[in-house]
């Protein structure tokens, strides 16, 4: 038997599913296709011409300051790994609380999502970034003032231009009330902001948010990775203190499969574009008065963190990996996953509210499976490991701070990654598209 490369088993299954149902497939997670990624980069480490720092003993800083350009209260984070925006609604209240606990334990920030701010999340989050989304579900000025930073969301890596949806089975009474919608209906999150269009308007919107909060809060602008170079330039011109770029491997709670896999560009391709835009504007790595870059979409290990920082990010954000740390796809729920037609390690039906791990659900029985304290502990452990791994690599490259890592520390093992990351193909001085 020979499997078709064009009509492989996943393609055949998708055609069969479409023919049977007449509706496109909606799922969670993020892009599953193979893409050029951080795996395709390697650090060179120290050598004759580079002097390493000593193992785990010599200091290697990890702190980062975000949003000092205009805000009187920038964020001072202990580590450069933050928690990305995920909504209450998509996630259980327990999961949101656990994210806040874990992030706070290691001195980093977490982020609300489409649907507003919950007391559980605010109460357990030392640094909480409040998302300002097109839907404005649950948006209110009291929470705006309670936030530590404001993130204006234009798009998401999994679905640039796609808006969002939360299917009826997850619209519990509490979620419905927070979003001012009838309980149990399929809820649409708008793809366009309702009161501004284009970068000139965004400038005025940012000014309004600053005026409402007395110029205290850092203001982020988040874009899904697509026309990244231009988007970042426009965001900075509009007045963003921090730009967040989310690559197509970034997660989602509910999006059409065709969208997840076919719209947007990989994180690796977007990051150097963003850095170039910031450099040309003279705001890259300029201390508190510069514009900081946060990159997300497929960050899994300390090596990924280190590579993102080396390419010019000031911090990264994690979403899918954070949920896995809480207990998503845990083998101890193998029987439950099987009953849902899935398996531990494959479960991606975040949209349907029956998550055995109690994370992407509003079912009170399932949600009770997640202990926020234990979940927070696990997330904090994971964040510590990411940080230590990034420090290990930074020391080996002779850096006393993880943000001192630089493109010169990297090479690529594929031509595609070399072209996207703008670092040489290993063993050569060839950067496709940049050098001959």
């Amino acid at each position, binding site marked *: 038997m020979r499997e078709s490369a064009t009509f492989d088993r996943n393609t055949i299954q998708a055609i069969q599913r479409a023919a049977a149902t007449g509706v496109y497939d909606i799922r969670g997670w993020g892009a599953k296709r193979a893409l050029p990624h951080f795996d395709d980069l390697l650090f060179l480490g120290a050598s004759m011409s580079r002097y390493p720092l000593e193992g785990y003993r010599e200091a290697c800083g990890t702190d980062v300051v975000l949003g000092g350009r205009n805000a009187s209260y920038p964020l001072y984070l202990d580590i450069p790994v933050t928690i990305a925006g995920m909504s209450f609604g998509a996630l259980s209240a327990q999961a949101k609380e656990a994210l806040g606990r874990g992030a706070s334990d290691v001195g980093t920030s977490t982020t609300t999502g489409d649907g507003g701010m919950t007391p559980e999340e605010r109460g357990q989050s030392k640094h909480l970034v409040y998302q300002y989304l097109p839907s404005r579900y649950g948006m209110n*000025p009291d929470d705006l003032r309670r936030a530590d930073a404001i993130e204006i969301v234009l798009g998401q890596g999994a679905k640039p231009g796609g808006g969002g949806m939360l299917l009826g089975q997850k619209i519990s009474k509490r979620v419905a009330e927070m979003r001012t919608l009838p309980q149990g209906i399929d809820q649409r999150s708008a793809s366009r902001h309702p*009161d501004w269009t284009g970068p000139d308007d965004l400038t*005025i919107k940012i000014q*309004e948010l600053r005026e409402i909060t007395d110029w205290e809060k850092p203001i982020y602008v988040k874009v899904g990775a697509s026309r990244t170079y231009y988007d970042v330039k426009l965001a900075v011109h509009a007045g963003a203190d921090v730009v967040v770029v989310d690559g197509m491997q970034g997660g989602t709670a509910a999006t059409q499969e065709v969208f997840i896999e076919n719209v947007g560009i990989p994180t690796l391709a977007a990051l150097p574009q963003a850095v170039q835009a910031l450099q040309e504007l003279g705001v890259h790595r300029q201390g508190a008065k510069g514009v900081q870059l946060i990159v997300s979409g497929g960050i899994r290990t300390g090596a990924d963190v280190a590579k993102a920082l080396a390419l010019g990010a000031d911090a990264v954000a994690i979403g899918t990996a954070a949920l896995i740390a809480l207990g998503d796809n845990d083998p101890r729920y193998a029987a439950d996953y099987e009953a849902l037609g899935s398996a531990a390690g494959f479960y991606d039906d975040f949209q349907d509210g029956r998550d055995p791990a109690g994370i992407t659900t509003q079912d009170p029985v399932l949600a009770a499976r997640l202990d926020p304290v234990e979940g927070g502990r696990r997330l904090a452990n994971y964040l510590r490991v990411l940080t230590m791994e990034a420090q290990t690599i930074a020391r080996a490259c002779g850096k006393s701070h993880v943000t001192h890592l630089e493109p010169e520390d990297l090479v690529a093992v594929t031509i595609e990654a070399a072209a996207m990351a703008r670092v040489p193909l290993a063993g050569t001085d060839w950067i496709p598209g940049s050098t001959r």
Partner: protein
Amino acid sequence: MDSMTIVMDKGVNRTLHRLDAGSVTITEPNGKHSVAVGLNAPLQVSIEGHCGYYAAGMNQLADVVINGNAGVGVAENMMSGSVRVNGNASQSAGATAHGGLLVITGDAAARCGISMKGVDIVVGGSIGHMSAFMAQAGRLVVRGDAGEALGDSIYEARLYVRGKVASLGADCIAKDMRDEHHAELRSLLAKAGYDDDPADYTRYGSARQLYHFHAGNEY
């Protein structure tokens, strides 16, 4: 503090945020943006002239009167209190507002009441296209005409229009005016200072055919 008059300039909003009561007159707004935004106290604020974008944005508790025209997003995301525009309003008036009363004595441009979440809006004149797009809750009263695609993708907001509607958006339909609607409309008009006969109005709302996505109901 009983009353004060201040010229619109940098720092006006900070000044207003520190007040917990009283009357304030803001002069020379000269089309500036973000005039009297983020108010959070029972102030009486009068703005003497035309405002730019987002005047009285996210208002809570305060009663704001704009004696002039208002730019994009007047009273956007208002939570409570009232905003009265004695003039015309640009696009997205009352966008996403959760509560309070917005009165526009003249016309309002496109997207009036877009994504409204509980606010009451009364427009003395006509409104532009795509008004009440994805309107979730609250009431929108239009004494004149409505432009194309009124109430597209509407949820539970109730729309009352006295004049012509150029076209209805997806899932928005005309509905019967029952006694409770006459009473509700009469009350809203009275709050805005009008005494029209509710019988001259047509009610519009959601057909609720888009509440559950399935093949065949995608526009």
